């Protein structure tokens, strides 16, 4: 259920961004990932999970990037992959296209996002609408001062922005009916 560290690698295996969440893995372990992957590719036995010693690499590939999560515990596999796909989705919503260039150009935002989505190896806020409210791409205007977190981050329901209030609680539905007469 917990990822020790998350890495974003380019196609050759060079680390673009890394975040060490739990601090119990040596960051150099990632150097073993690429050779192992290449070897498996040669043998024709690629699997989404690669083990080296007692570190497990769970990886997905998106366009020309590899996103790798490392874990030592017997983690919940479906959850980790779900998480990796979710952050891919978040990145795509921020940068329109997720590939090596977009990471290189926006690494500030990427660092901020990676800080926010996972803490100590557990996923926190991953809803991109909420994240967009306080991590913006243009940078913050200095005069206004630091942004305050929207109350959504502190709210009971994670997806609904605070302060939405409607005067009348009503719903409109349009029913369109078409009839063919023979």
């Amino acid at each position, binding site marked *: *259920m917990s990822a020790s560290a998350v890495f974003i690698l380019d196609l050759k295996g060079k680390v673009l961004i890394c975040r060490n969440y739990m601090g119990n893995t040596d960051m150099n372990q990632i150097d073993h990932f690429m050779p192992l992957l290449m070897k498996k590719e040669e043998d024709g036995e690629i699997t989404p999970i690669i083990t080296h010693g007692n570190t497990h690499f769970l990886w997905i590939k998106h366009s020309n990037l590899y996103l790798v999560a490392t874990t030592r515990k017997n983690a919940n596999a*479906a959850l980790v992959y*779900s998480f990796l796909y979710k952050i891919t989705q978040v990145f795509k919503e921020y940068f329109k296209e997720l590939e090596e260039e977009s990471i290189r150009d926006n690494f*500030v935002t990427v660092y901020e996002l990676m800080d926010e989505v996972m803490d100590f190896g557990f996923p926190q806020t991953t809803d991109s609408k909420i994240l967009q409210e306080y991590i913006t791409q243009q940078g913050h205007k200095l005069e206004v001062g*630091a942004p305050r977190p929207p109350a959504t981050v502190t709210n*009971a329901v994670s997806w609904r922005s605070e302060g939405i209030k409607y005067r009348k609680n009503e719903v409109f539905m349009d029913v369109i009916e078409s009839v063919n007469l023979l």
Partner: protein
Amino acid sequence: MPYLGGEETVKELRRALSNPHVQGDPLRHRSTVLRVIRVMSQGVDVAGLFSEMVKACATTDVVQKKLVYVFLCSYASLNPELSLLVINTLRKDCQDPNPMVRSLALRNMTNLRLPSLVEYVQQPLTAGLRDRAACVRRVAVLGWAKLHSLQPHADIDAAVVNELYSMLRDNDPVVMVNCLRALEEILKEEGGVAVNKAIAHHLLNRLKECDVWGQCEVLGVLQRYRPHSEEELFDILSLLDPYLLSPSVPVMAATLGLFLSLCCRGLPAVSLAALRRAQAPLLAACGSASPEMKFTALCHVQLLLRSLPGLMGEHYKRFFCGYAEPAYIKQRKMQVLVELVNDDNVGFVLDELKGYCTDVSPDTAQAAISAIGRIGRSYSDQCLEILTGLLGLKQEHITSVVVQTMRDLVWVCPQCSESVCEALEGCEDTLQDSQGRQALLWLLGVHGDRVSSAPYVLEAFVEQVRSEMAAGVKTELLTATMRVFLCRPAETQDTLGRLLHYCIEEEADMNVRDQALLYYRLLHCGIEETRSVLQGRRSDPSLGVLIGRPAEPVSQWARSFNTLEPLRQCNAGAESAPQAAPYHLALDPEPSLDLCDPLNPSQDRQETAAAESVNLLLPGPSAGPLAPGPTAGPPAPGSGGGQLGLSLSPALSPQQFEHLWLGGPQCPHGEPGAREEEEEEECVCVQERMGVSPALQCSPPPQLQAALQRSHIQTMAFTPPHTLPWRVYLYTHTRWGGPAPRGPTLVLGELLYTGGAEDQEGEGEGGERGLRVTAKQRPRDDEAMKGFLQVLSGALHTSSTGSC
């Protein structure tokens, strides 16, 4: 940025950061800090900028703060004293009116992971637990967990633990979940959070407020809870029911895991019912968009099928492979298909599998053919038809696998042997690899009386036996020829004689030679004795091999559901998992050749498979003295002693070779059979002399390199042709397959032929005649060295006789 520019960049950045103008202008300051981070992400070492960055930390700009913290967290462990300077700023920020800044400060204080800072951090953390903003509370809760993981032996104050327990009732669901996680971590030795009835009910009631990650966490923790009464159990189950059908795969898997752990003790029927209900979402997961989820779902389906074998029989179509799917998914799907076969769908399934047999990728084709073979144990006629049709394609890799599959099939279902024998005619031409040939030889040996052309095929093999490299094929050839001789003596006598003569006189591999000697002596004892030994007691074919597998109770695998275990089991053949998966099950019992023929010593087929599956841990090319670690993986069932395999990976570059060669022990000159060892017996240098034929005298023959390559020895360099003395430099890695405890070694070799006037005689003793072989091995392994020398001389022989 070029690597060489690293130094300059760092100096320039330091100047920029210390420049008071830059510090005064917030925008410029921020962009400088940004450049530092950019440079850091590109791999340049910017640890020297630590003190400047610490000063940059005191700013009102949140983005800049974040960047500085990223830097600090990466390099804090290198500069613990300087990090103390940051603490003041952080503590001040913990009291900032903006909750965002507070949470950022708290989070990074705990991320610094410095033991010396612990005392400063505790007070803000305690205050953070009671903060009015939820985001700060979230961070504070996890901060305690981080603190504990930093210093596992220091006791966390009991008051804090109590506070965390009470925060389970916090309004914010993320705080609640974080508390769970923190308590799990802190109370790890005591087995994690103590879930009593009140807590369990509270968690269940708030389950719907949590997001996906939170739900998974809660469901995971609840596995530890034991309901007090059956009524309570059923209440819990009905509450969790909607989550079983949740669209989110992790939640569904977690719920199913919880169901299984709750029910498997007392109520097996309920757990089976739960499995049936979970069928639909699992099938949906098998069709999900991402291949990794599919893979996870497929591995879990395989787990399920262990308990409910026919579970998804009518949904078999879902497991048909798409064209573009990655190979690992196709293979899993085929494994699942084999389990789902029943009388209704066998026709369709076989049709589909037949389509995959001609797939572009040889691995998929092989998997498909083996799958057909497994189905053939129950439905032999249809499968045999398909297999025979495949033989007609005359494709090398297909034929090889088909012959192996037929061999397995015949062993299990003797009634198929008729059709198999008919099919075997004429396929020996298309077989090139040793596995296929071994299978063919076995079949010819056992059913030689029914295959009309058996002696002639064997004769063709015997002609080529000199160029045959694999010892397994030779032993198989011996056994097969003997068997055929017993039933058709007239035709085989001559062939057998030649074969035995070659094996006894010229063969270098001791196993083969000994077996040939044994047969020779047996024949001397008389034909009746030979017959009684060779065709001795076989196991009764009517007993058969257990085709099916009894359904396992769910409790055997319930605990490993929804963890990494099922995925690792699927990979068990391809990984060197240090802890073997507890419920490792071979999906198809492989027939052991031992039962049939007590004289066939090595189950080479399984051994070479084991040797292939040992995963070599690759040291990075820049690692110092190559020290390969022991990596014998879980042995294939029934393999005998280790079999030596050679391999070319990891590849050595010429510089590495030179460095290692010159750095290793030097051989004393001029003595054949000399050895020198380094102190700790880590490396050894051996010299040998090998007799060499006239063809080798002018220059290393061109076939030498090819012959060496075939035996997995890589030539690094050799002198230009037609020069004397000529040298060849080569290297290889030796590996042991099977359960031998010795690890792989690296062998570097040099062949030196100095020439000389009087070397017309083949065998010279001493002197400068013949080829001098120098080999250096690290670490030392005498058996592997012997094996290597054997292979080398075999290769030299082959290339010097110039045969194919």
